[in-house]
């Protein structure tokens, strides 16, 4: 059995028992990346030398009997919108940050290092995390390991594909409207968006500040729990990070939640859902029923009809502001053919940003403009409160909400690039959890007849990640989905 077939928890145990060294784990991942990533293109940059150095240091410290941390020697990939010092690039998959080197580590990167993880590389994404297919990358699209003609989802498609193809056991992504959960579903892995404020955003390059949240990818629920535990917690540098204690998410993970009332929103099975997705998700709900859970039909009246519209006003408004700093003056890409300062601003931004980013900056600029603010931004905030209330009312009756993560399985590369609205609808079931600032997870729950993975989304109330993981684990234990590897991995083995 190859080291890359081990989960993070298994690697952790093997290293602790000295059956495996950190260097071996890192070398295994680097080999897998070398073999498969030219086809998948999950990584924007790798750091083999740094990774090897770090792994050797971990081994030295382990040999000296030091406590090296929760992730000692475990190879990890980080989405390339989280800052890493040490000379590795941080590009956000944008030309405008080409050549830029972050002078500091993001909070989560500090946490990974402090817990002994070995960061082997930075993964591809839709430019500035804007997209649902990882096709909007200035450095090329990432492919779905289950079918190289299809997208891995997005925007954290690089991290999802890297975990699915067993290039790394665990990876970090960021989720603004579904950017962890949707690619997790399309790639057949576990991906979680914690409660807003659970993980510090310091060093996460902002797309939409009130929605962005960093979260874990893993092949198993336990691996996601491990990575969340290592990265969650209050950070004084992020005023929106919350002073809630971080429980040990692995402890009690095996304990089922009983009794369990599952809310099944009518709106999550509405028009537009792929029939195979619907039947596979309904089968998953039946598994929970067999485990003793009660299915409760509920309604979230504002959460599907208005969530996409609300999301694309709130997110683009914040993005238009957050991305104003990329102007060619202080760092990053600067045009070389400008005539004066204003022209430099305009050309640097016109040449540096891709089309989807420009589209969203324009939408957001429009929504915040004098005379339109009340009709768009302010109204969107009001609807956002209604969406939040939908969930509050639901959680008074049920312990969690379940449905499909994505209305369809992975689509073909290029299929939706000409139709932004079709692309936006990929997130129809995921954006409302971001708007409501609550926790959500996607776990593998089966396959289409053609062998594409399908994801089950589970949503719980704020700061109940521990219970959310236990609910996910109940299902995982009953089914074998998380053990299946894409053919490309088996062929290579």
């Amino acid at each position: 059995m190859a080291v890359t077939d081990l989960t993070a928890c298994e690697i952790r145990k093997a290293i602790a028992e000295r059956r495996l060294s950190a260097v071996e784990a890192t070398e295994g991942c680097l080999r897998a990346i070398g073999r498969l990533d030219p086809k998948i293109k999950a990584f924007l940059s790798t750091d083999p030398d740094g990774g090897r150095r770090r792994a050797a240091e971990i081994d030295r410290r382990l040999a000296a009997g030091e406590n090296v941390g929760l992730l000692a020697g475990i190879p990890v990939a980080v989405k390339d919108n989280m800052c890493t010092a040490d000379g590795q690039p941080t590009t956000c998959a944008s030309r405008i940050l080409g050549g830029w080197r972050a002078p500091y580590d993001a909070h989560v990167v500090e946490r990974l290092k402090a817990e002994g993880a070995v960061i082997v590389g930075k993964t591809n994404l839709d430019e500035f995390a804007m997209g649902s297919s990882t096709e909007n990358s200035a450095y090329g699209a990432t492919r779905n390991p289950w079918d190289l003609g299809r997208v891995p989802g997005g925007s954290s498609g690089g991290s999802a594909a890297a975990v699915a193809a067993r290039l790394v056991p665990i990876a970090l992504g960021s989720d603004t409207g579904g950017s962890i959960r949707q690619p997790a579903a399309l790639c057949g892995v576990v991906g979680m968006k914690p409660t807003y404020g659970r993980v510090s955003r310091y060093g996460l390059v902002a797309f939409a500040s009130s929605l962005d949240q960093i979260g874990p990818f893993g092949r198993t629920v336990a691996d996601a729990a491990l990575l969340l535990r290592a990265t969650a917690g209050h950070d004084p540098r992020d005023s929106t990070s919350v002073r809630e204690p971080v429980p040990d998410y692995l402890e009690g993970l095996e304990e089922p939640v009983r009794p369990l009332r599952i809310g099944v929103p009518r709106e999550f099975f509405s028009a537009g859902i792929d029939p195979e997705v619907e039947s596979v998700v309904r089968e998953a709900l039946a598994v929970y029923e067999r485990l003793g859970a009660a299915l409760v039909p509920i309604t979230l009246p504002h959460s599907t009809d208005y969530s996409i519209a609300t999301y694309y006003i709130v997110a683009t408004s914040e993005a238009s502001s957050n991305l104003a700093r990329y102007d060619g003056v202080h760092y990053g890409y600067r045009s070389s053919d400008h005539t004066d300062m204003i022209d430099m601003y305009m050309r640097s931004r016109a040449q540096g940003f891709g089309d989807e980013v420009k589209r969203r900056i324009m939408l957001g600029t429009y929504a915040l403009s004098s005379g339109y603010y009340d009709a768009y931004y302010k109204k969107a905030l009001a609807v956002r409160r209604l969406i939040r209330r939908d969930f509050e009312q639901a959680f008074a009756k049920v312990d969690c909400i379940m449905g499909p993560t994505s209305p369809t399985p992975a689509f073909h590369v290029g299929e939706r690039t000409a139709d932004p609205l079709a692309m936006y609808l990929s997130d129809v079931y995921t954006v409302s959890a971001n708007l409501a600032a609550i926790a959500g997870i996607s776990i593998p729950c089966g396959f289409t007849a053609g062998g594409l993975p399908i994801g089950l989304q589970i949503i719980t109330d704020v700061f109940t990640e521990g219970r959310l993981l236990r609910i996910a684990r109940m299902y995982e234990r009953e089914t074998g989905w998380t053990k299946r590897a894409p053919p490309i991995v088996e062929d290579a083995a």
Partner: protein
Amino acid sequence: MSAAEPVPTIGLEVHMHLKTRTKMFCGCKVEYDVRPNSNVCPVCLGMPGVLPVMNGKALELAVRMALALGCTLPGLAKWDRKHYYYPDLPKNYQISEYDQPLGVKGCLDIETSQGPRRIGIIRVHLEEDAGKLMHAEGGGNYSVVDLNRTGTPLLEIVSEPDVHGAEEARVYAETLRQLAVYLGVGDCNMQLGQMRCEPNISLCIGADAQGKPRYTPISEIKNLNSFRSVERAVTFEIARHREEYEADPAGYTLEKQGKSTRGWRDDEGVSFLQRSKEEAHDYRYFPEPDLVPFVPDRQWVEEIRRTIPDLPEIRRRRLINDAGLSEYDAGVLTADRLIADYHEALAEYVRDAKMAANWMMQDVMQILNERKIAISEFPLTPQAFGDLVNLVASAVINRNTAREVVLPRMLATGKSAGEIVKEEGLAQTSDESAIEAIVDQVLATNAKIAEDYKGGKKAAFGRLMGESMKASSGKANPQVVKAILARKLGG
């Protein structure tokens, strides 16, 4: 229709740096005159991924100033982003407060040559300063930027259009500065750019048919950095508005031309147009999602309110009206907050504000001047110094002994006035028979001088007085000596 004289109607926007050790959203030091771009970090450089963290001290100082200006603190103040592109603003937005500032509806009392005036304050809010852009000298086609100032906490104070003349505008700005310095809110050194004034000037030109006042277009003069230039620029603008209005009474109105922004050339003494209404920015304000709204804790606010000292003007008037001090003395004793505090403590201890003021003016201030030290470095507490004052007031020692002997010894040794008087046997005597014996002896040995006095030479009395005091080694109560001498000389 323009029978009535147009009335200048002026509101001022004043920006001041708050006196914090570090910047508003990061740990970089606030320093002036240091190497360009030496006090910067990823946060104030607006690097990708950084987040602001509010400086609690900046918030406290802003609240302090707002309270001192009598502002109401709303239950919630929030932060907003104000967008504009300029290379001295690395994020291309400024974190400010738009529609829910931390202080509203206050006022400032000022003293002009025309008498006291009350100027309303519309709002007080906190924002971050930008950096400094310097254009290449000699026409080079580049500019350089210094971001040391970026993120310095800046308080903006917006007045009602209650100011009606150039002198008032200057005095308002001066009074605001004095208040901020007095409260420890800011140093307000205008040369260092710690305080900038932007008057908004218009003339009220009568009323329309409905009785609504009509105005000339508002002109805002940007970034005036001396009180003199505030007065000169306002004088210039008032005259300019008058001329423009007289030349075109129908067209030169606020509703037709709106608001414009102007610069000021101090050397030439003229203002010039920078931006007209058509070029006005749309700042696209929206709530700053990276900061949580500020909900002032009532107890915290009350603690700040308690530490606000009486304001200089209130203290000054009280010293004149209640303690009978001269305008001059009252002015000196209230100009510096710590001196005013010292005087107040001394007056309370000796239970006489006027007497305390005399000692402050004649002794304490003199020592401060001689030694070139601040009151905070004066070695005696108001209580220790007050013991000396009380010894004189109760006639244990005389004023001269206190000043020439005891005070220098207190400063040198740190001993109390009482100890020194006791050790040196300096307590004066009022024992009439003992003093009479001394006086008799002085008159006997100075018979010639006594004769001179009786012959009409009034100055001779002083010499006899001095000889008697000397003979008593300074210990005789001068009042008693004086009375006995007068009696003996038949005066």
